[in-house]
């Protein structure tokens, strides 16, 4: 177990360094010149060159990357080109909002997805099952930008149940979490349905039924725990998918998280922020996967860590 953990951690670090190298190279190859963005349109060529030197952007690629990596290993993500503040500060200020939204989204997707899957499995083959599965399909495929605006329009503008975007209270959290969660809910509904159907055909369920237990007890006490566990273990892997949605949803709802930060940075070629957020998200994804793998054998003894 310890050997496994050590190996996985080393692997994770290598993955992160690899991601940093690829992202850095892609941003370096971009035809957009960040110095032009910083210098603005009135700057003389001399000013542009002076800024380029100050930022070390006149150096060859390997020197630039080496310098970035060296600073990174010391925990320094650099300074934003446009905002001129520490990237780590900008990210730390916005991380709580993103984490909160992520937790909200996970709660939403599990609550909605598992319920839908459970009902569909129990009513397998019925019209309820069919419509739930169609709904889950729509949930998976609907663009989050559209879902977000739709929810905003109906529940915030027309019905005034929730505030129109923003951040701060629980009611601010509901619509964005729902928007991110709806997609995941579609996946979970499908997974839950098949997992539940699997379990319902197991021998021990038949035994329980033969003992004369009522349907509800069988479902809740015997079937559900076994059906849910492998799915809950997936949540770690989910983080990667959620990250993608969060960039869009944070922009729609004016949610002050790192998704919004990186979205703005991309438009202004603010490379230190793009790098910083990419690395932080990559770290979250790698960590999520690692946790999912570590948890797996505890949930399903058939899985062994080697």
């Amino acid at each position, binding site marked *: 177990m310890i050997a496994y953990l050590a190996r996985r951690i080393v692997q994770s670090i290598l993955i992160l360094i690899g991601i940093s190298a690829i992202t850095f190279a892609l941003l370096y190859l971009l035809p957009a010149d960040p110095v032009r963005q910083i210098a603005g349109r009135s700057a003389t060529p001399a000013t542009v060159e002076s800024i380029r030197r100050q930022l070390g952007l006149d150096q060859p690629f390997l020197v630039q990357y080496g310098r970035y990596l060296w600073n990174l290993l010391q925990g320094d993500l650099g300074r934003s080109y446009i905002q001129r503040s520490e990237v780590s500060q*900008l990210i730390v200020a916005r991380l709580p909002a993103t984490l909160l939204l992520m937790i909200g989204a996970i709660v939403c997707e599990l609550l909605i997805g598992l319920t839908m899957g459970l009902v569909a499995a129990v009513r397998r083959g019925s019209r309820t099952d069919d419509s739930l599965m169609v709904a889950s399909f729509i949930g998976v495929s609907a663009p989050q930008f559209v879902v977000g605006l739709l929810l905003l329009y109906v529940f915030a503008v027309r019905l005034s149940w929730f505030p129109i975007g923003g951040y701060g209270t629980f009611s601010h959290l509901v619509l964005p979490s729902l928007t991110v969660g709806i997609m995941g809910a579609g996946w979970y509904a499908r997974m839950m349905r098949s997992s539940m159907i699997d379990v319902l055909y197991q021998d021990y369920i038949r035994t329980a039924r033969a003992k004369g237990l009522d349907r509800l007890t069988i479902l809740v006490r015997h079937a559900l725990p076994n059906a849910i566990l492998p799915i809950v273990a997936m949540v770690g892997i989910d983080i990667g998918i959620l990250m993608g949605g969060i960039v869009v949803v944070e922009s729609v709802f004016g949610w002050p998280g790192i998704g919004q930060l990186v979205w703005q940075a991309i438009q202004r070629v603010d490379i230190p922020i793009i790098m910083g957020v990419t690395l932080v998200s990559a770290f979250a994804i790698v960590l999520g996967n690692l946790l999912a793998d570590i948890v797996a054998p505890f949930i399903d003894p058939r899985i062994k860590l080697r």
Partner: protein
Amino acid sequence: MKKYLVSTAAAAALALGLSAASASAQEVDPNAKPGGDIVITYKDDVATLDPAIGYDWQNWSMIKSLFDGLMDYKPGTTELVPDLAESYEISPDGKTFTFKLRPGVKFHNGREMTAEDVKYSIDRVVNPVTQSPGQGFFASIKGYEEAAAGKADGLSGITVVDPSTIRFELTRPDATFLHVMAINFSHVVPKEEVEKYGADFGKHPVGTGAFKLGEWTLGQRVVFEKNPDYWHKGLPYLDKITFEIGQEPIVALLRLQKGEIDVPGDGIPPAKFQEVMNDPAQKARVVEGGQLHTGYVTLNVNVPPFDNVKVRQAVNMAINKERIVQLINNRAVPANQPLPPSMPGYAKDYKGYPYDPAKAKELLAEAGQADGFTTDLYVMNTDPNPRIAQGIQQDLAAIGIKANIQALAQANVIAAGGEKEGAPMIWSGGMAWIADFPDPSNFYGPILGCGGAVPGGWNWSWYCNEDLDKKAAEADSIVDPAKAEERNKMWSDIYVKIMEDAPWAPVFNEQRFTMKSPRMGGADNLYVDPVHIPINYDHVYVNDVQ
């Protein structure tokens, strides 16, 4: 020896050749009730509030409320007035400017502002370590080269005569110098605060302005609070301004309609524009005004067949500008010259090229292109620019020019424009020139002069007419405020001359539309102030103060 001695109000009037009878520079509005607070929304983070660094339209106006410069503009106009300066004096050769500072002006930290601070602030912008985009604005001051290269400690041309007098010596007469003293880059900062916060000064701004920074929660809000010690008694009217960050324009509009905010800083989203303007109640709260902006197509004179002036003129006559303005819901007015109508020096009598496809075809034939040709039209890939490019494409097709649209990210278009033979045609939308200050020279140097026709420059048509460069230098050496009218006329002639060579096809001048809540008060021109976008924070007020 004759000297131009001018003081407060009359100065600006003279500088722009206007009537000297204009009232005091920053009079207090008798209808305004002090107090109250407003909410402004923005989509993007406020980048920095350091006047040496901030250079986007969003922080530009915010910085103006936190800091002051020696000069400023009369609210809602392009009229120069002394601000931190009480009066100024220009030597007859136009190379020495001496400013007398207003007494008793205090920074937000309580210390009195002196001439040393003015010198320090400008030295700081020119110092390469600061990485200021505005460095080049001070190039006419003596000692610039050494200071900008980091070889000197400051500009040798700036002398602190006494704590309330500062003198600038220039290497050449510079008619735009008073404007330079009004742009944000020359706003005055206190040395001790800059040194205390270092690179983070932009997050902890301390100035002499009407407002001081109250709170800044990254990614969420910036709060400005009234500066009770503001040197201009009676201003500002508002106690507090809250800028809420991260709000999509469409969401901001919905919130405005519900009465939750006062001004959506990013304007009315294009998709909702018609809907708003068709509703009389909402339309009544929209203020329309001009902008120091021109949208144009650059025609690269290095790329055949655009090296032929007839082909460039043909393009000018082929574009149906009225129809293109309709494409963007009439949020602009057709243009016929580089300068926008609200800019001094705009040639009112110049008619420009008429829309005349038949004549355009003739010109093409004369240029030996009777069968037309194929070329590329570069455009930034965000709405409405590709749509506008398609409109231009159709117009060009009508005279036989097949233009392939290259819709790219902003930075890529800029990069292509900066290469000698990179882009035959570029639609400037989304990257167009907006003046840094309301002076006709501002539309020349970098975008139409020889100085900008260099790799990585902004003169995307690569037009370089040395004769006009000389005329431009001549016009800018007319410093005498009494001759401003003559100088503006010279600039008009330069731009009309440029249009004869047709390196651009000017298409339209964007109009500004600022929407506000019903409780907002103040003259309409404060909401479309040419130098404060979206609004002039120092002079607006609310009507529902108790």
